[in-house]
């Protein structure tokens, strides 16, 4: 069997330094994600979704427990190794895009490669490829302020994919988009997931966004309280209804 793309064992995260007030954001998280899955993480505000995602994407370190991404134990990575790992294995889409305003779309997309000193030829090729997939080939010369929110997020998505990461993370990637742009982005993500077998892990509190995933993990009180698998034959509409039902039971 293949190594899972994400394997989390006994993960715990406590915020607050020694003398400060402590807050246990994650108590005990265990889960696996296989290559090619499209997983959603849902939960109420403050339930620890961002906390979990930040630790999976190497942006923050766990208090205890193990996180393996594509077989590598993340907490053992330091300095340049960590930088290389981020540049090669991790793709991340932020809610607020985080594009550099002074760079064109093409240069923004190229950032992970430029920062790793990849040759210009190689960069141009990769950027053109990924722009094609995301349907933004026409926008490459534009600056971020010339783009709509949806276009910006597609550029950001291209930047997260340009280096062929082992996994694509997103923290509420549709959170700042109108419903039409959100739907477009989600369809693109689905297409990328199906055609290119890219593993995607996305945090969202929006049931509509979540209905595009194959599997959903619900976080509550620092644990994964339950998960929901989408049946192959199930339409998205039916899955959406099922998500709503589960969220309904959570409310009580």
């Amino acid at each position, binding site marked *: 069997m293949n190594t899972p793309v994400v394997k989390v064992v006994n993960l715990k995260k406590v915020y607050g330094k020694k003398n400060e007030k402590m807050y246990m954001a994650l108590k005990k998280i265990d889960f696996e994600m296989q290559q090619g899955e499209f997983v959603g993480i849902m939960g109420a505000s403050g339930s620890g979704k961002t906390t979990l995602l*930040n630790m999976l994407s190497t942006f923050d370190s766990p208090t205890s427990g193990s996180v393996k991404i594509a077989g590598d134990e993340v907490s053992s990575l330091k300095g340049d190794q960590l*930088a*290389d790992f*981020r540049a090669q294995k*991790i793709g*991340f889409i932020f809610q607020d895009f*985080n594009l550099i305003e002074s760079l064109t779309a093409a240069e923004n997309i190229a*950032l*992970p490669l430029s*920062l790793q000193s990849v040759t210009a030829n190689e960069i141009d090729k990769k950027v053109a490829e990924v722009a094609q997939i995301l349907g933004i080939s026409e926008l490459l010369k534009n600056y971020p302020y010339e783009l709509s929110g949806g276009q910006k997020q597609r550029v950001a998505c291209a930047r997260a994919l340009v280096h062929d990461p082992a996994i694509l993370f997103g923290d509420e990637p549709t959170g700042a988009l109108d419903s039409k742009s959100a739907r477009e982005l989600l369809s693109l993500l689905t297409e990328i997931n199906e055609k290119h077998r890219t593993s995607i892990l996305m945090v969202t509190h929006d049931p509509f966004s979540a209905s595009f995933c194959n599997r959903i993990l619900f976080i509550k009180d620092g644990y994964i309280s339950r998960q929901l698998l989408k049946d192959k034959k199930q339409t998205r509409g039916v899955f959406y209804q099922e998500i709503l039902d589960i969220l309904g039971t959570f409310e009580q």
Partner: protein
Amino acid sequence: MLRKLAVGGLKNRWKDYLILLSGLIISSAIFYLFETLATNSRFLQANGEVVSFTGYIFNFGSILLMLITFVYLNYANNFLLNMRKHDYGLFMMLGAKKKKIGQLVWVETILIGILSTIIGIALGILASSFVPRLLTKLLGITPKYYEPFWGKAILWTALLYLGLFLLGAILNTIVMVRKPALKLLKSEQTVSKSFMPWYLQLLQALVGILLLVAGYWVISNANVLKQSTIPASLITLTLGSYFLFNASIIVIIDFLRKSRLAKKKIEYFYVGAAKI
């Protein structure tokens, strides 16, 4: 690409950098002016006792200015750092190595240093060209051998200010490289808050006004200080204006930002500066 990132950072936020630059430009211009007076020994010796005494006073003024600039640069630098934290955090998250981040910080800081020093010296030369006329008017002499374009002054000003920026670059690099990426990405990007605490601004305003008042008093009561009237008034007036400027800089920039016309002018200024 490295250059583009560094220059892009500057270009993108030039309005904010203007706060940082203007204080340093004015300080280096004043420093240059003082140095043209203090380091030109031929001029100091050829124009009688009053002028030769001036040399000492301006040496003293230069040192004072140096200390103030050191404190000012400390804040300016901090502010520069805060402005760029977000982008550097993002670069780290995208896989930039510490060495790369270090290079970027370095290039940016030094670029700003060179830019503001050059403009400062140019402004200083301009200001110095009025010195002979001033001396004639105040002392009734036609000063001999005074050079507004004075090599020694250029050298000292460049050395001091580039040296200070070099120090800043080293400190910035250390700070950036040590902080975790997520912290950097999330740090506040507001300008005015992180620039200078209000009590320092108030202090500068008070000292500035005090110095200006003292300067005018010295001029209007020339019989009290006699031969030191000219240097004393020049120093109190320039330093006083500088302090007042530093204190009101945030207000000035906010005003500039809001004014459309000024915005256009500054844009030209920036474009011109970028060509240097």
